[in-house]
């Protein structure tokens, strides 16, 4: 069965599940659902707006010349890793040098999963969409490949698939003629792993520069940091309330 045909079934199931979730929600005290559901969502449960996935990147811990997060992303999502002008890059290492002081910093740059994403605002078909849990995705079945979202994204986070693809990861459908970007490893999140390939790789390398988690869950590490330490949004002037924040810039 093609993915296209599968979709309505999925949607129907989601709606049913949603109804179920609401029913459960009413049965429980609101607070319990709020904090309990975040980390313990079953894979088939719909994304919840009680959750907002986010990431904090501490650039002081990010090692110059280390590319592990990029490699891990490519592997997880089936990207070739090529870096020509027409190749997809969901995450990249960005080197910045302060023009006055000359201080150099290296940091990973990816889709920052804006709360008010310009890509979603401009998309004519609604293919670019933000899930209830804050993850911004492109619906591969609705994207017509107009690239307006790429024009609108302030972070240059998106790539257009210029060539037919082979050897794809079945969990991460991609396709020629569509636009794509970092999904916060939505397949892992939906499996309940609640982490991303880049974060795992960074931890495995011992740098621990990236933290992923639910910003709405006060017990999570990310929420603790947000509450107690200074974090920076890139292009905060645009007021997009990004889900990826930085420390040490």
């Amino acid at each position, binding site marked *: 069965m093609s993915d296209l045909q599968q979709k309505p079934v999925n949607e129907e199931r989601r709606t049913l599940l949603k109804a179920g979730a609401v029913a459960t929600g009413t049965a429980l005290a609101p607070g319990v659902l709020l904090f309990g559901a975040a980390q313990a969502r079953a894979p088939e449960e719909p994304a919840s707006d009680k959750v907002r996935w986010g990431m904090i990147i501490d650039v002081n811990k990010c090692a110059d010349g280390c590319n592990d997060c990029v490699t891990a992303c490519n592997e997880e999502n089936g990207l070739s890793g090529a*870096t020509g002008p027409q190749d997809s890059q969901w995450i990249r290492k*960005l*080197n910045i040098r302060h023009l006055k002081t000359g201080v150099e910093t290296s940091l990973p740059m990816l889709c920052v999963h804006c709360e008010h994403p310009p890509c979603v605002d401009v998309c*004519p078909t609604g293919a670019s969409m933000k899930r209830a849990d804050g993850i911004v995705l492109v619906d591969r079945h609705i994207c*017509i490949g107009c690239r307006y979202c790429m024009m609108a994204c*302030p972070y*240059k986070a998106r790539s*257009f698939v210029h060539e*037919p693809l082979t050897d794809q990861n079945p969990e991460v459908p991609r396709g020629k003629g569509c636009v794509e970007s970092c999904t916060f490893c939505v397949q892992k999140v939906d499996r309940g792993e609640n982490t991303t390939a880049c974060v795992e790789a960074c931890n495995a390398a011992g740098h621990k520069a990236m933290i992923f988690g639910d910003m709405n869950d006060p017990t999570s590490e990310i929420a603790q940091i947000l509450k107690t330490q200074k974090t920076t949004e890139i292009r905060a002037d*645009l007021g997009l309330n990004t889900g990826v924040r930085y420390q040490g810039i």
Partner: protein
Amino acid sequence: MLSQQYCLEARECKPALFWTLMGAGGLVLLGTLYAFFTLEHHGHVLTGMDNQIVWGLPHVFAVFLIVAASGVLNVASIGSVFGKRLYKARAPLSGLLAIAMLAGGLAVLVLDLGRPERLIVAMTHYNFKSIFALNMIFYTGFFAIVGLYLITLMDRSLNPWSKPMGMLAFLWRIALTTATGSIFGFIVARAGFNSALYAPLFVIYSFAYGLAVFIVVQSVMYKWNEIQVDPRILARLKNLLAIFVAASLYFTAVLHLTNLYYAKQWEFERFILLEGGIYPLLFWGGQVFLGGILPLILIFSPISRHPATVFLAALLVVLGGHFQMYVTIIGGQAFPLDLFPGYAESSTFYDGVVHPYTPTIWELLLGLGGIAIAFLITTAAVRVLRFMPQDDLKELELELKPH
């Protein structure tokens, strides 16, 4: 009265010439379709477009056609809304050109999509927040309204309706061009685009481009039908063109001055006006000189009484319009996004560097297809229906008398 040499009946026309024209247009369109299927098979990898320059040459042609399409309708509006006979006689051709060019421009946009076969998806899934989707609604409405307007113009019994329809078409087209300009104005993140001025700017540009296209087409039609255009009519049209061209230049200056003094987009302005290689060249040489100053010189020179001079001036405005679109659309993307103001940036994803763009033959073929479609529609329609501007000189006499 004008001599009745032009053909009202198909059989009186020059069939050889007609079919040659259709053949030439068809051939270009065939090339476009070949490019389309090739890209459909291999992907956009064959084009010069990439993840940095996401909109390329096809969009230059497409946006020009769409903007000029709304502008060309001005001729009809002046006729119907303001009751000027000179323009009224030209209203049908003006409406026809508007429909033909809009069809051509939209076709290019569709042919360039990554997934053109999902056009039906685009038509059934609307994100009403998207200015792009809003444009689609405006375009569809434009076809319908201008189509009805044409009918009221050409069917004598419906003639009284032509004034309100003309009014509606006029308002609709202003809204449409505003929306088209806003496609760029809404791109908040890019230094070159984020300006509310884009909407009014595009309206002014559309006036100039539309009238220029109209003059070019009318000149060619008259020439082929061996009609001498009344010099006073020509004088009116060329003076109007001069006003529109001068206004375009003025608004262009305002845009750049605002960017410099209010929006503080110095880096971008230095790029586009001075140091950006091809873009300053196309801006000053193409958009400003060839498409602005030279046509003005031609129009106000002593030789401007000659129809060929006016034709040339209009042709230059059309050419300059394409340069303007190239500078606006591609120049705006070539300048890198600034993620960290105050820092120099570099990465494997081409952050912090000017993005080069070299269009390929595929993009050119897609773009030319828009012109071919507009050309074919116009040529065929002119052949079967009365679109040729016919002036009743006795009546015009009253209007053209020096006031």
